[in-house]
């Protein structure tokens, strides 16, 4: 049977007449297997929208309520589906509104192609209506970008754009198309891109490095794995699990690596980093071998670099040569695709268990349970905690939902406590920390994995940054479950103000609207919970619904997220209170 992509390519090949640049854009998208794009129309992109109208049976366009929403939706779609997300906008403000999402996709390595309209090429540089230099603006936050001023360039540039976005370390690509190029005609011939001479997506596997890594792993007494999103982006979950199980090495995740290994796996010891678990952070400075896999030693993971894992030998499995020795100097860099490197590594390592060493993680987990986790998940006070909401969600989804989070306290709590049974289940803005990410990303996540339950957990601050996307959710009827954890504060900033700025709560208190009324205004089922006894039933009702559903949970106003490594402190200085 032929795939939709092959049919589209074949159809394209049989075209004998000239077509417009705008039609060529649509045919390129179809040839790349795109069946869904997010966007917002406007003057300079209207010819493409006119073609979208004609091709609506083959290519679904979702009208978001703001271009930023289109990028985050495309990101959510890419993260759950593994395909390239596509966002489209007009010139000027349409294009600049994409920038936050593009920067987010760049730092979190999300494959995305953004298409922007541009004023006619005869007007370039004349400060024409809605002209903006989006190529200049997007350059530092794109993997690649290109301005098409001539229709004949369209097929080659689109093929290249998709190839670059999805290959190697994925990332966002922007194509700016002048209006004349959309109107002009061309002889359309599409050829998929298979290589760019100046671009090497990844290095060939370094067998010497792999055997050196195996040697260190076999010798280590207290080895420790930290894995990141590279495992997911490289579709290496199976190999990774086999590696962990054969080596018997305790493994911790960065926030973007979350869900690559099930939460309940006995060797999954939790999260590293600023609000990560106690054991993995402390023992980073006790292990004798640190195996970093598809992660990039972000400052939120390492804390103070001068005191980070100095006692350990370090192996770094990484696809991007620029990440090697960028923040942490490593002993054995293993460049290349981690799926292939792991495949080669597994036969070289001895089957082991590190029970005594793993026991250290368990002991420290007991301390964390007593000091932090019990209070979060089984509170004795009256007010609801964010943690117990997550517990209830776990119960009703059996850990098999896609969790989409925004940025702040709720994000840390949700990532710490949500159960995961399969990969590609955690969608969050990790690197850029973009408030407003979750609501549109949840829409995209649901459309990228329609068979899955998608639960967005969002703070009351971030929710109001892209709240208008409720309109898109209503219009598409994407069955996203939206949980707003309302503490009437910008909680994470308030926590820092409490701890480091003598409780001077500068502009962090929020006077909020009636969120349920707003959701109902968009004709969504909506409920509010402020008492413990009503929480579980409300979550059950939300999960049972097959429609979009909004649930507001009023939580304790001034709870803090712990453990915590203060900025600039060492991982050893992690605080439990």
């Amino acid at each position, binding site marked *: 049977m032929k795939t939709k992509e092959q049919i589209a390519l074949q159809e394209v090949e049989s075209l004998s007449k000239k077509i417009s640049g705008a039609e060529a854009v649509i045919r390129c998208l179809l040839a790349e297997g795109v069946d869904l794009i997010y966007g917002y129309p406007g003057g300079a992109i209207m010819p493409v929208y006119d073609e979208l109208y004609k091709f609506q049976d083959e290519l679904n366009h979702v009208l978001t309520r703001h271009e930023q929403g289109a990028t985050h939706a495309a990101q959510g779609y890419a993260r759950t589906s593994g395909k390239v997300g596509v966002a489209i906008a007009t010139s000027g403000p349409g294009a600049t509104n994409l920038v936050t999402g593009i920067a987010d996709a760049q730092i979190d390595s999300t494959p995305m192609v953004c298409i922007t309209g541009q004023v006619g090429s005869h007007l370039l540089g004349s400060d024409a209506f809605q002209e903006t230099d989006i190529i*200049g603006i997007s350059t530092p936050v794109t993997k690649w970008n290109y301005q098409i001023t001539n229709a004949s360039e369209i097929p080659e540039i689109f093929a290249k754009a998709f190839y670059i976005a999805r290959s190697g370390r994925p990332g966002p690509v922007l194509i700016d198309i002048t209006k004349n190029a959309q109107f002009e005609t061309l002889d359309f011939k599409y050829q998929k891109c298979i290589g760019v001479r100046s671009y090497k997506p990844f290095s060939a596997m370094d067998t010497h490095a792999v055997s050196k890594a195996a040697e260190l792993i076999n010798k280590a007494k207290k080895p420790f794995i930290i894995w990141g999103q590279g495992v997911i982006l490289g579709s290496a979950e199976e190999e990774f699990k086999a590696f962990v199980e054969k080596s018997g090495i305790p493994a911790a995740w960065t926030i973007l690596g979350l869900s690559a290994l099930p939460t309940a796996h006995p060797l999954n010891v939790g999260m590293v980093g600023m609000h990560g678990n106690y054991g993995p952070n402390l023992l980073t400075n006790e292990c004798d071998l640190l195996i970093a896999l598809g992660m990039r030693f972000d400052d939120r993971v390492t804390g103070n670099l001068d005191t980070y894992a100095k006692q350990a030998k370090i192996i770094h499995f990484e696809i991007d040569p620029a990440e*090697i020795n960028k923040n942490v100097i490593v002993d054995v860099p293993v460049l290349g695709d981690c799926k292939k490197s792991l495949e080669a590594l597994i036969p070289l390592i001895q089957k082991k268990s590190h029970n005594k060493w793993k026991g250290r993680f368990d002991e420290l987990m007991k301390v964390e349970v007593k000091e932090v986790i019990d209070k979060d998940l089984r509170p004795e006070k009256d007010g609801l905690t964010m943690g117990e909401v997550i517990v209830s969600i776990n119960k009703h989804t059996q850990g098999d939902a896609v969790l989409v989070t925004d940025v702040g306290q709720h994000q840390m709590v949700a990532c710490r406590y949500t159960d995961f049974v399969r990969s590609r289940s955690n969608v969050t803005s990790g690197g850029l920390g973009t408030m407003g990410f979750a609501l549109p990303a949840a829409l995209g996540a649901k459309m990228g994995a329609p068979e899955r339950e998608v639960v967005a957990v969002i703070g009351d601050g971030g929710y109001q940054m892209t709240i208008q996307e409720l309109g898109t959710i209503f219009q598409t009827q994407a069955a996203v479950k939206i949980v707003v954890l309302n503490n009437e504060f910008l909680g994470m900033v308030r926590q820092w103000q409490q701890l480091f700025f003598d409780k001077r709560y500068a502009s962090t208190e929020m006077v909020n609207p009636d969120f349920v009324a707003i959701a109902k205004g968009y004709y969504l089922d909506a409920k509010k919970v402020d008492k413990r006894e009503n929480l579980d039933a409300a979550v059950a009702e939300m999960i049972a619904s097959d429609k979009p559903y909004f649930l507001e949970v009023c939580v304790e106003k001034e709870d803090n997220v712990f453990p915590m490594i203060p900025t600039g402190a060492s991982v050893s200085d992690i605080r439990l209170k």
Partner: protein
Amino acid sequence: MDKTFTISIYSENNVGLLNRISAIFLKRHINIESLTTSQSEIKDVFRFIIIVKVPEDNVKKLIKQIEKQVDVIRAFYHTDEETIFQESALYKVKSSALFEERHIQNIIKESHANIVTVSPEYFVIEKTGFRKETDRLYQDLAPFGLLQFVRSGRISITKSKMGISEIIKKFKSDN
């Protein structure tokens, strides 16, 4: 410790690449001492020569970030000892100085500078060489009144082989 490094970049000749490369320096708050771009020894391949004064650790990271750009074929860094390099300078002086001040003729002769053009009002001298040579000529001519002075960025060729043709050939055979 800061040291002078020559960064050589072989790239595609695409609009916007200069912006992409300079953004790498901007993001890290690194000042570019000089920058020149030209065609390279290979048809359709462009070459950038960028001079920076940074610690070696930084230049290593810069090279990786530059090579990461899709349109960059390869990037290298070298010390002064590893390269043959030159700068070019132009000096515009009023013609009367040439006739009234005999001394100026000796300066031109001794510095091995060339007179590029002479008109009734002014003449233009060109000097190619190391920075200290163009600087010395500047010092020598300054008392006579420089109407204009301009110096190019460094151009540089490495003593070692670059191997760009091999990379391009390999790409062609692989694809």
